[in-house]
């Protein structure tokens, strides 16, 4: 009989779930709360999970906390959209502003492995110029890291995650061949390709973090993708290369401890002004873990919330906030789409939803607005498809039920677009309390004129592409956003950023932030690969700083 991953922690008593085998365990080193561990990491997703593995492999003692459960994908995941809501962060939050962000599956995760447990696996590199958007392209902010350095770490990330992708990538500087071959295209992917060709732009197979051939070795044990199509609701076979299947097993093998169902509510600072550890809630009570370093990796809402909720006498405005920028410059990405009906069946529910991509408009600067975007093939399952019919078209009643009958004939392409940083878009604390008694995040967002111009451009281009291949009854989904970034931006000046290039906070030298919050700009691509890449670089830098006695 399966235990319930929500009722009690699974990672304890010296063992943690073995995600690759039914009912099996792997041994886990444990630390006492009175031990001053080298690193307490808050969050185990693309940032924290990656860092936990890489720091433990360097010999640091690591305890990584996650507020969510430790799932066993082979046993806990159903092929069912609504059941798998359990993967999302559905604790209380308040949204407002002119374009309030709808929270849920597209921008949150609450599980060991974070949102990578349910991400669409799209693993893209930023365009080189996007790391110097301010100086090269005239908008947003520069990253404090060169594109060449990022591309070096992208190479490593793609190899270690075993990305499946095309032989040659049509855009940007030369990159190595992807470690695994590209996946076969489904009907939706082939139609995206046809649409791009019809309007004269390039397309390719999407680089994806799901295996196209078996994997068996020290880096994991997984079969190739079975094309069941529920990727965004948790992979039941482990073909998906998430933090839960890539980095967490490595972290455990290297001696890191994972604490699941452990919500960190406050970071403590000591008389010297340095962080001394974290207060966390587990099994009904509050605990304190001492640590020499604290890494916050809770993503762009929970990271600033924790820093703000940790305000104390010395830091009344929250930790790492002398710049006043914690919580500010929140960015999401535009996720508008065009949909239409084909004359022949498409049956887009088969295979990963986004098998084909065009990145044309990230690399074309002949536009009268800043930023870029991609678009991807789509395969929404029935619940999501119904929500698009209601959200975009306002359908209800018999009209809704009739429209849904065309499910197997629909196609669509959806953008991931760059939104520009703006200090007015931000995370603050609400007076609402969550189940732990902590103030919840209030998320304020409005699209700017540039954001709107970019969206209008993308809708027009995407519409042309599906019209050109005979899609009928085309309609626009104009109000949708997805990934997040920016609430603790990195930079080279402590007055205008929260952390430096090494993800180290300017104010508190043993407090680090390593997740999508540090992005100064979000680029026009899905962020997960870049977050993992930043973590790879940060781990190297921490090793170098430790060796130089500068931690």
């Amino acid at each position: 009989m399966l235990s319930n991953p929500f009722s009690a922690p699974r990672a304890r008593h010296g063992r943690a779930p073995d995600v690759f085998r039914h009912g099996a365990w792997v041994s886990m080193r444990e630390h006492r709360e009175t031990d001053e561990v080298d690193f307490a990491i808050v969050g185990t997703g693309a940032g924290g999970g990656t860092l936990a593995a890489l720091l433990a492999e360097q010999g640091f003692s690591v305890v990584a906390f996650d507020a969510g459960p430790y799932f066993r994908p082979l046993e806990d995941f159903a092929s069912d959209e609504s059941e798998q809501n359990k993967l999302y962060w559905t604790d209380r939050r308040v949204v407002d502003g002119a374009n309030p962000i709808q929270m849920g599956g597209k921008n949150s995760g609450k599980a060991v492995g974070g949102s990578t447990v349910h991400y669409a696996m799209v693993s893209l590199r930023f365009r080189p110029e996007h790391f110097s958007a301010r100086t090269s392209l005239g908008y947003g902010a520069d990253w404090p890291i060169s594109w060449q350095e990022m591309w070096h770490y992208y190479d490593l990330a793609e190899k270690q995650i075993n990305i499946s992708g095309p032989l040659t990538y049509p855009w940007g500087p030369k990159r190595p061949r992807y470690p695994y071959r590209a996946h076969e295209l489904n009907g939706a992917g082939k139609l995206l390709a046809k649409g791009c060709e019809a309007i004269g732009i390039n397309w390719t197979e999407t680089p994806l973090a799901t295996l196209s051939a078996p994997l068996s070795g020290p880096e994991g044990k997984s079969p190739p993708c079975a094309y069941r199509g529920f990727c965004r609701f948790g992979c039941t076979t482990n073909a998906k290369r998430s933090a839960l299947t890539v980095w967490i097993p490595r972290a455990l093998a290297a001696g890191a401890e994972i604490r699941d169902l452990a919500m960190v509510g406050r970071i403590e600072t000591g008389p010297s002004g340095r962080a001394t550890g974290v207060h966390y809630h587990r099994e009904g009570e509050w605990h304190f873990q001492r640590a020499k370093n604290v890494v916050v990796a809770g993503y762009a809402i929970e990271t600033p919330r924790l820093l703000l909720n940790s305000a104390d006498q010395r830091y009344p405005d929250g930790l790492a906030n002398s710049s006043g920028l914690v919580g500010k410059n929140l960015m999401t990405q535009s996720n508008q789409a065009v949909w239409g009906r084909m004359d022949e069946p498409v049956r887009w529910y088969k295979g990963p939803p986004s098998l084909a991509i065009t990145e044309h408009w990230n690399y074309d600067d002949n536009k009268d607005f800043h930023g870029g975007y991609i678009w991807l093939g789509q395969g929404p399952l029935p619940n999501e498809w119904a929500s698009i019919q209601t959200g975009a078209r306002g359908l209800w009643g018999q009209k809704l039920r009739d429209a849904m009958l065309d499910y197997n004939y629909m196609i669509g392409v959806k953008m991931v677009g760059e939104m520009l940083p703006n200090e007015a878009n931000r995370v603050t604390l609400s007076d609402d309390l969550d189940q732990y008694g902590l103030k919840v995040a209030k998320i304020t967002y409005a699209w700017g004129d540039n954001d709107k111009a970019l969206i209008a451009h993308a809708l027009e281009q995407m519409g042309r592409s599906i019209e050109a291949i005979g899609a009928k009854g085309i309609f626009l989904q104009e109000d949708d956003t997805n990934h997040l970034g920016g609430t603790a931006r990195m930079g080279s000046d402590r007055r205008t950023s929260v952390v430096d290039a090494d993800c180290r906070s300017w104010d508190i030298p043993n407090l680090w932030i390593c997740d999508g919050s540090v992005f100064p700009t979000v680029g026009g691509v899905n962020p997960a690969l870049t977050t993992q890449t930043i973590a790879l670089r940060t781990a190297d830098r921490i090793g170098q700083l430790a060796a130089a006695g500068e931690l």
Partner: protein
Amino acid sequence: MTKPRYPGYDVLAKRNTPSWDEATRKVVDKRLATPDRPRFLTRDEWSVAAAFCERILPQREDAAPVPLAALLDAKLLADHGDGFRDADMPYMREAWRRGLAAIEAEAKTRHGGRSFASLSDEDQDRLIGAMADGGLGGEHWGDLDPQKFFKRRVLVDVPGLFYSHPSAWNEIGFGGPASPRGYVRLDGDHRDAWEAAEATPGHEKKAERDNRHVV
């Protein structure tokens, strides 16, 4: 009455095939066994909810009914929502309680004290249409914005419940659960033997035959 697109297709026929794993069977079994009685809602709220949901997604005579009021009640009882609220909206449970009460009060005001459930389909649709178009508001709603309630709660929650039911998957020809078997033929016009067959004009019987072998 239109004919079914996928005659005889029953996603539940795959329950004991390699397309369904134990976790999925458990989840869908539980959903199908949802008690058909109010547990979170009061009896009065339930009766409004049942009539109201029926207009958001009308049932068909030729398809197994989807017990929307029961599924909504179960969702509210478990408090399984999206978690967040708009700054000017209450959280999910309270929004539904207040929304249902306001709908009932609107019906009584407009129709001489008659309850929403007793109105004709047309009158119910008129009231819902007014809510959707921003034509409701006032004393019955307090600070709950009816249009926002409709957009952010009703049109999110009710279709989500309906299209989580196997009966709805059958109707639209969705493959349903697919683990561990997945699919082999990824093209839309290439159907795996365990996918729904669509009735094309003149070939309805063949589709029905094929759908009997969808296992």
